[in-house]
């Protein structure tokens, strides 16, 4: 049978089956099981109304349970078993085997980089684009063009960016934009300005930002102040972790400023960008940032529009300049939305698979967890370690999961 025909039949059977199920089950409930007539009419109506929600919910609960809830439990179980040993329970063997693999740690390190860089960059660009496009007449057109990559598949985007990163031998004309731009630098004063001073300043700004973040997170610990009065027990370790992360990034940026200023750049030689260890991760991240910025922009732009005019007007009357208005009036008011955007992009990052798979397949030290897991599953056929790495992804996601559920429940009250 032709698959298209099969598809059509599936639609008819699926949709018809669903509607038929809902219709018939309601009919049966009302006509035969609890008919609203006779002696017990009142009681029957009440009973029928108690059962009915579950009729409406059953297909969804069944599908959600089978396709999402059950796999979580089953993956956890599989991560403690060994496929070759006939599914015997092996305790934490899979985990310790995974931990002893350098590829896993490479994937972890890269994932952490992705987790920091991509949400930060996408949110920042999105905020910038939202703020700028809200102020001009053709803003909506601009927005829809920046938003457009959302519709492009990760695979399609990978092809697009592979063309940008393409490399030809030095004596040929470059067809990749990045190499064409790179070869236009020859080591003169302009190259010094654009390839050393400007990036160094950017990294310096990032480092300063991180230092400020470390200071902010450590301040209450050092001075023992607890003004908010919410001295939860988990606040102290959380602050310590944030401060440690910040300090690590600060150290990284100081190191990179030094290397930026001292490294000798291979001018005039075309680079194979995707094979340069460490930096190639950033070339992959650019793809995701390019896609996710539009998302951040759309959400943040709606939030910016929701800001009460009076607060901005009051600031203008008080003589605030546009930057003050943006950073001190607008950003604090949309902080909640920024957090939502940030976490949503974080979720996308944790599951990123297609980009790495299509562009490097984890070679040249670009492995990430999702691709590592796919590798274990379908190339090494090692379901135990594959499941273990899936559980690691789940663990990384779970803080966001808990936070979302907590917020959703708070809202419903």
């Amino acid at each position: 049978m032709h698959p298209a025909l099969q598809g059509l039949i599936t639609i008819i059977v699926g949709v018809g089956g669903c509607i038929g199920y809902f219709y018939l089950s309601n009919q049966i409930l009302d006509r035969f099981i609890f008919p609203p007539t006779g002696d017990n009419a009142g009681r029957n109506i009440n009973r029928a109304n108690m059962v009915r929600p579950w009729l409406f919910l059953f297909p969804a609960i069944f599908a959600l349970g089978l396709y999402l809830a059950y796999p979580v439990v089953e993956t956890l179980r599989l991560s403690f078993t060994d496929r070759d040993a006939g599914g015997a329970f092996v305790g934490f063997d899979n985990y310790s085997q995974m931990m002893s693999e350098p590829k896993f740690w490479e994937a972890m390190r890269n994932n952490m980089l992705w987790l920091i860089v991509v949400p930060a960059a996408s949110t920042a660009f999105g905020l910038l684009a939202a703020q700028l496009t809200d102020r001009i007449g053709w803003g909506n057109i601009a927005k829809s063009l920046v938003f457009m990559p959302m519709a492009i598949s990760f695979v399609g985007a990978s092809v697009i960016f592979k063309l940008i990163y393409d490399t030809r031998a030095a004596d040929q004309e470059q067809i990749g934009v990045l190499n064409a731009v790179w070869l236009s630098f020859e080591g003169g004063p302009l190259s010094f300005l654009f390839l050393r001073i400007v990036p160094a300043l950017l990294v310096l700004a990032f480092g300063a930002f991180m230092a400020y973040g470390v200071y902010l997170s450590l301040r209450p610990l050092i001075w023992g102040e607890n003004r908010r009065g919410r001295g939860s027990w988990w606040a102290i370790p959380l602050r310590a972790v944030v401060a440690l992360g910040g300090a690590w990034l600060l150290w990284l940026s100081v190191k990179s400023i030094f290397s930026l200023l001292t490294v000798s750049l291979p001018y005039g030689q075309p680079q194979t960008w995707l094979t340069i260890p460490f930096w190639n991760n950033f070339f992959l991240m650019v793809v995701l940032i390019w896609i996710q910025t539009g998302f951040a922009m759309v959400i943040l732009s709606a939030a910016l529009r929701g800001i009460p005019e009076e607060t901005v007007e009051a600031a203008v009357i008080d003589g605030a300049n546009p930057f003050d208005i943006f950073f001190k009036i607008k950003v604090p008011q949309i902080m909640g939305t920024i957090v939502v955007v940030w976490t949503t992009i974080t979720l996308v990052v944790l599951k990123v698979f297609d980009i790495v798979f299509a562009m490097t397949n984890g070679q040249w030290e670009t492995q990430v967890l999702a691709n590592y897991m796919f590798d274990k599953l379908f190339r090494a056929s090692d379901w135990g370690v594959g499941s273990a790495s899936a559980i690691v992804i789940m663990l990384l996601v779970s803080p966001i999961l808990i936070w979302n559920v907590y917020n959703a429940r708070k809202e419903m009250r």
Partner: protein
Amino acid sequence: MSSIAGSKSGLTWAVHLSVLALVLLWLFPTVGLFISSFRTADQISTSGWWNALFPAEQGLVLRTGTAADQVQDGNLFVVSGNLFADNDENTDATISTWGTSSRDISAYEPGETADLGDDGRLTVGANGDYRLESDAELTSRRGERVFVTAKTPPEFTLQNYERILFSGSTTDSMAKAFFNTLTVTIPATVIPIVIAAFAAYALAWMRFPGRALLIAAVVALLVVPLQLALIPLLRLHLGIGIGKGYLGVWLAHTGFGLPLAVYLLRNYMVGLPRDIIENAKVDGATDFQIFTKIILPLSFPALASFAIFQFLWTWNDLLVAKVFLIDATGETTVMTNQIVELLGTRGGNWEILATAAFVSIAVPLVVFFAMQRYLVRGLLAGSVK
């Protein structure tokens, strides 16, 4: 006052310019792919796509006609013709300089005559017309080599699309993958909507114990990574005999799409006016009637938003298709997978890659621009909470 006005307009200009820069930066990659898909393999490999919009200066080695083409004109032996036409090059090109030796390829201007000694005298015009005349009969079996520097106008071709869509080539053709993708996408978009709509109605408008818990569960399942589901579900599918195929991928997409569908639709339905529903109840409508006659039509915007999400997600998906659909025969390959394979086998053939990629992103782009309003609304409903 004037200084304030001046700084204001200066700032406005800065805003316009930075938005323009941002938009161009964001469009640039896609435009590159789009233009490349209309260029021939030669063009792509000899110049960057950003040069394709302007006349390109090209160095060519062309040959004149051979001795066999000569005609006798009085006591002269003449070979004439057009260099570009004779060599199957673009005839719209204009020669800026030319030469007859590889050591000096720009020895002559168009219209000048080169003395080739025993081989005669060669005159080449700007449009490529040449005339080679000699006092003695020409004997050379090969034509004279002419090195020309020519400006060729931009030239685009549809042959890549023909090759990708209609050639039937086993490695390059996307036609089958295109229909496979459609076959995956449409049922995988329609079925979750129906299931989710009923569930969302129950969660929004029916009172029963455990409702809050169920909503919390949906919110939790919203973020469960797909990766966890792969092994257990593949085992399940293989175990109950579905195996790898369309049915499996439809079911998988339905399951993975449900949390978002239920969440979006419930949030929307909760916001519908209570009066309408209560009036209908007073008039004796059953829940089923309320749902089909009132809730569904009113929820159209939310249904449309989810439909677009699910469509884009299933169309662009690679992982689920790779795990649940594509078997060893590769008969059921989808476009994303086909492109990844082309990246492996045709890594350097950008005309094939660019065209294949553009074919696969064209449909989502059309949907995106046509239904953007609903997409934005869905994003806002799904995130700003």
